[in-house]
């Protein structure tokens, strides 16, 4: 579903991604872990073109995002993204947030879009909150609305950029539960996370990144049980 080849990304003189190769199969959940500044968020943001790539290729669903602006627009329609800071639109209700892109991008009628929004809000357990503004919701509720908003475009791939890092510990669970369900339903997911428990339980494969490179890719059992690389070991020793 996603193929990344020889991806390099530079911010000015600083090379944040130094040759990434990674493929993600359809229906697979891949968690990306690693220390701060390792480039994991940048990698994720390259996949839907929020960051322009310096060199290399990324294809999503067979479409090369770097080939044309049109391709990038196509890929964005098929790719949902969930941000650390939620980034809900504060001047719209939860329902309007979810219905916005289907109406404006997919051309659904208002009634159809609202209908879809209601179904998705129910799916993330917030059917009561459709008329609430983001400011009236807790962080966990906001993040679940953000997940519903991304799903409203019926994406083939979901990208999660540290979705629980801005949440209080006691409400992290509700967001992770929503994501777990999504993974079980067969969504293709790439999750940048510090939640090692989630990575171990939910992912099919775990990617460990450090200093702009993929150090190790393994199943959760191998990664957390017997990591092969020295750098992986020392990182996991610190966080586990």
């Amino acid at each position, binding site marked *: 579903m996603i193929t990344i080849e020889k991806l390099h990304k530079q911010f000015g003189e600083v090379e944040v991604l130094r040759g990434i190769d990674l493929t993600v199969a359809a229906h697979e959940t891949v968690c990306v872990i690693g220390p701060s500044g*390792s480039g994991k*968020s940048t990698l994720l943001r390259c996949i839907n073109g929020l960051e322009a790539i310096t060199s290399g290729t990324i294809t999503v669903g067979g479409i090369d995002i770097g080939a044309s602006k049109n391709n990038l627009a196509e890929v964005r329609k098929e790719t*949902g993204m969930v*941000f650390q800071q939620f980034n809900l639109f504060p001047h719209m209700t939860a329902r309007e947030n979810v219905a916005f892109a289907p109406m*404006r991008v997919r051309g659904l009628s208002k009634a159809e879009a609202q209908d879809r929004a209601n179904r998705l809000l129910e799916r993330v357990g917030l059917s009561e909150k459709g008329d609430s503004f983001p400011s009236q919701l807790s962080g966990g509720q906001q993040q679940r609305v953000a997940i519903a908003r991304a799903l409203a*475009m019926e994406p083939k791939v979901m990208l999660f950029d540290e979705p629980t890092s801005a949440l209080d510990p006691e409400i992290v669970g509700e967001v992770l539960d929503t994501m777990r369900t999504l993974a079980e339903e067969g969504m293709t997911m790439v999750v940048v996370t510090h939640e090692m428990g989630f990575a171990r339980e939910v992912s099919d494969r775990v990617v460990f990144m450090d200093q702009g490179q993929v150090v190790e890719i393994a199943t959760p059992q191998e990664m957390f049980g017997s990591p092969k690389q020295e750098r992986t070991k020392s990182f996991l020793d610190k966080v586990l």
Partner: protein
Amino acid sequence: MFIEQLLGLLRAAGWTLALCVSAGVAGTIIGFLLGVGQVSKIVVLRWITTAYVTVIRGVPVLLLIFFVYFGIPVLFAVDLAPFLAGFVALTVVAAAYMGETFRGAIQAVPRGQFEAAEALGVRYLDRTFRVIMPQALRIAVPSLTGYLINLVKDSSLIGIIGFVELTRAAKILSNLTLDPLGAFLMAAVIYFMISFTISRIGVAVERKLAPKSKASSRKLATTAIPAGN
């Protein structure tokens, strides 16, 4: 006698109002475009709009009025009526200040808002007018109100090129009645009433655009922190 004088001043106040409303509306529209231009991806557009704002803000309003009233006839061989010259000069100034206000407001909308819309595949126009602008407007309203009040006061300078607006009318009245205190006091009260009305309208608009609960502004502030990595 008193009634007659007051009516004369009120007529002049009407002209002041006409000047301010027309220049205020035109200035806001042009200012909005200048603000959008200043944050545009197109370098030339950014350059031109920024240069305009910087130059105009650096020149005294009175000088601009002289420039339009006396300078344009020299340049283009057309005479401008004092009202038209006043309107043009005030619009030019208002646009510059409002352009700067709109630029600041647009840039104050958290970057994550652009990115969220971009990630959803929302196109430029929808992104600008349905996601960013409603939020930018809320941020801009207090400064815009403040600037409109300034505009009312700047309009008193138009009297210098011979247009009888409120301040000039008060001056004429004081010459007639030999009662400067009374004439200028009446003018001051009328200016205050205009300004006060504008500021009340500003507050009402601000309330209407405000997010729902008070806690929200604080929460919004935390969402403004850019994502790490």
